[in-house]
């Protein structure tokens, strides 16, 4: 089934909706809010979930049986699809006045939702509750904040990592940790290619999150400038990266896959001839299982370092957002649920059952996470990689830009278009969207 194809049209609708909502302004934080008051009757909350549905549903069931029963709060979880479908549904629900109380969505969507007045500033709730956010400090937290105000809680965290076929590496005398630097990458891939005659690495550029990591690590640059008003996609560093990948692609060392080949990209991880792949640590457990089916011992290493040992990996995954809807007491109840959902044990549970990283420092000290890290050492690698973490661009139009860049850059590789010229044109298109 071609998932991507079924989502392109909804995506366009999302873009249109975002444009409709863009005129709304971010609300100022209320000075204070009342704490949740438990009533005689059960307060029902709607919680829209996205990705890893079974884990989220299990967490909600746990809440309803424990803290929820104690507070007379009952949460109804409703799965809405992937992050982009969720974004579209949230935007539509905001217009129709049918927002849920709490929802999960991708980390980079905070500003878009806040600008559209869809989500609440959490600072007044944090102040009323004397809630300590310092335990969240795993990796860059930039995507939770607008200015100094916290607008979201972290739910699951991921970083792009390098998956290494340790079985192939051992057979061909390669480093089982993969190349440590981009300077070593070509020789590493060449050895694997000479041994198998197959492309030893696959790249799915439409997951632009990975490209963000490559831009940071290989080129020491970012997709957009700091205030997100101008594109860096035609910068010297970006041109260098695109040229580097094209060179590897022309030598048969990297196979670039098209937008409809997402499943083939993930399946390549179980191909004995695949030496390396860059993807989210969120898929770690799934990938390790798939690789094992083909007799492959799958290792996890950091994205290779660029010049001067520089690395940069965007922190991805999901946040929980408190929607600007309902009564004050419903909002306070929703905040109670968000606190519980983000707490140490729950964060550890979510991490251990997925591959995503926990969102609290204290979660790493739980027995569950200690056992998980012992069984799957890649968790530790990904946690260590957070030292190099960066926030993702926050502009409300970023998803539109990601799609555009993914398509245009693939065109460069697959059709051998002139790199600098094509990236200059792309940069103009991106700037137009940024300043629309």
């Amino acid at each position, binding site marked *: 089934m071609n998932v991507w194809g079924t989502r392109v049209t909804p995506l366009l609708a999302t873009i249109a909706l975002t444009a409709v909502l863009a005129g709304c302004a971010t609300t100022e934080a209320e000075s204070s809010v009342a704490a949740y008051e438990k009533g005689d009757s059960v307060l029902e909350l709607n919680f829209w979930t996205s990705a890893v549905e079974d884990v989220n549903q299990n967490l909600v069931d746990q809440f309803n049986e424990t803290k929820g029963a104690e507070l007379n709060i009952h949460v109804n979880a409703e799965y809405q699809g992937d992050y982009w479908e969720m974004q579209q549904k949230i935007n539509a629900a905001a217009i129709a006045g049918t927002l849920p109380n709490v929802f999960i969505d991708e980390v980079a969507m905070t500003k878009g939702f806040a600008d559209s007045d869809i989500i609440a500033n959490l600072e007044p709730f944090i102040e009323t509750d004397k809630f300590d956010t310092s335990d969240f400090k795993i990796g860059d937290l930039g995507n939770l904040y607008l200015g100094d105000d916290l607008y979201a809680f972290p739910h699951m965290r991921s970083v792009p990592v390098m998956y290494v076929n340790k079985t192939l590496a051992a057979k061909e005398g390669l480093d089982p940790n993969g190349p440590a630097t981009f300077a070593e990458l070509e020789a590493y891939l060449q050895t694997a290619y000479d041994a198998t005659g197959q492309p030893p690495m696959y790249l799915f550029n439409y997951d632009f999150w990975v490209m963000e990591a490559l831009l940071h690590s290989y080129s020491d640059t970012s997709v957009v400038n700091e205030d997100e008003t101008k594109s860096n996609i035609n910068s010297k560093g970006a041109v260098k990266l695109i040229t580097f990948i094209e060179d590897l692609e022309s030598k048969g060392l990297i196979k670039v896959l098209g937008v409809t080949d997402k499943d083939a990209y993930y399946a390549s991880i179980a191909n004995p001839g695949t030496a390396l792949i860059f993807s989210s640590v969120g898929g770690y457990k799934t990938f390790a299982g*798939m690789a094992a089916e083909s007799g492959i011992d799958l290792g996890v290493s950091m994205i290779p370092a660029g010049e001067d040992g520089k690395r940069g990996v965007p922190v991805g995954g999901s946040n929980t957002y408190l929607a600007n809807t309902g009564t004050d007491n419903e909002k306070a109840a929703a905040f109670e649920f968000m606190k519980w959902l983000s707490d140490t044990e729950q964060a550890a549970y979510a991490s251990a059952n997925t591959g995503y990283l926990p969102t609290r420092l204290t979660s790493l000290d739980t027995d569950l996470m200690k056992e998980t890290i012992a069984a799957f050492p890649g968790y530790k690698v990904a946690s260590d990689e957070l030292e190099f973490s960066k926030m993702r661009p926050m502009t409300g139009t970023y998803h539109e830009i990601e799609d555009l860049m993914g398509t245009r850059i693939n065109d460069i590789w697959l059709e051998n278009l002139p790199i600098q010229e094509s990236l200059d044109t792309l940069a103009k298109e991106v700037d137009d969207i940024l300043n629309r």
Partner: protein
Amino acid sequence: MRVWLRLPGAGLRIIISVLLIVIFLMPFYWMILTAFKTLGEVLRMPPKFWVDSLQWQNFRDAFTRINFLHYTRNSLIITLGTMIGQLVVVVPAAYAFARYQFKGKNALFGIVLATMMIPGQLIFLPIFVMFAKSGLLNTYVSLIVPFIASGTAIFMLRQTFMQVPDSQLEAARLDNASEFRIIYTIMMPAAVPTLSTLALLTFIGTWNSYFFPLVWTTTDAVRTLPLGIQKLQDVEGLSPQIVMAGNMMLIVPILLVFLIARKQIIKAFTYMGVK
């Protein structure tokens, strides 16, 4: 066509026909094959074009890991509801356009035809808001009503109704037959092939519909089978063999309906083609 006729001999034509059949059947074969494989076989490189043993478990997994019966029931209700609704709305409309003269008829028919050119993505939001305001979100009504007035169906039926001789209608009216009786006893029997074709097209379109059930539902209450299959993919992660088993179960009703209705459909297209 001319190239085809110039081909030397029937043997070559047969070979090309077989090749075309293979090309068209290959995606179906691949789907069936994947549905019966183990994950290891699905991921094997180079791929195998057969299976060592049939994995019926994939179908059991697809059936049990989502609430398959619930989604199937919803799909049936919405599909049958849309088909019946179309019959009620479209037949009288097509009859009026075919047999009545009234002011603004051509303009009105032009508007009906124009609706065929409006992409659904343009109308989903206003309709979504309308349903939200009227409390109809997450109901069967929201997934049936917008689709019962079909411009395509009105157009096709109007063309068929126009073929019925005036003399038959005049005779019926002389016998004091009501308009309802004329539609029921003269028009509809004459249009059975067209109605069958429309029913099949509506069945396939509604059964397979993904976008509108996706954007107009926020709970599982009325979600349909294609959304269930998509959910299966999200829940199962990278288990294409289970997703393909789900897809096979999704298309079986369409194949059955097509097999039952195929004679009528061929008749309808032949009838319209020789007009």
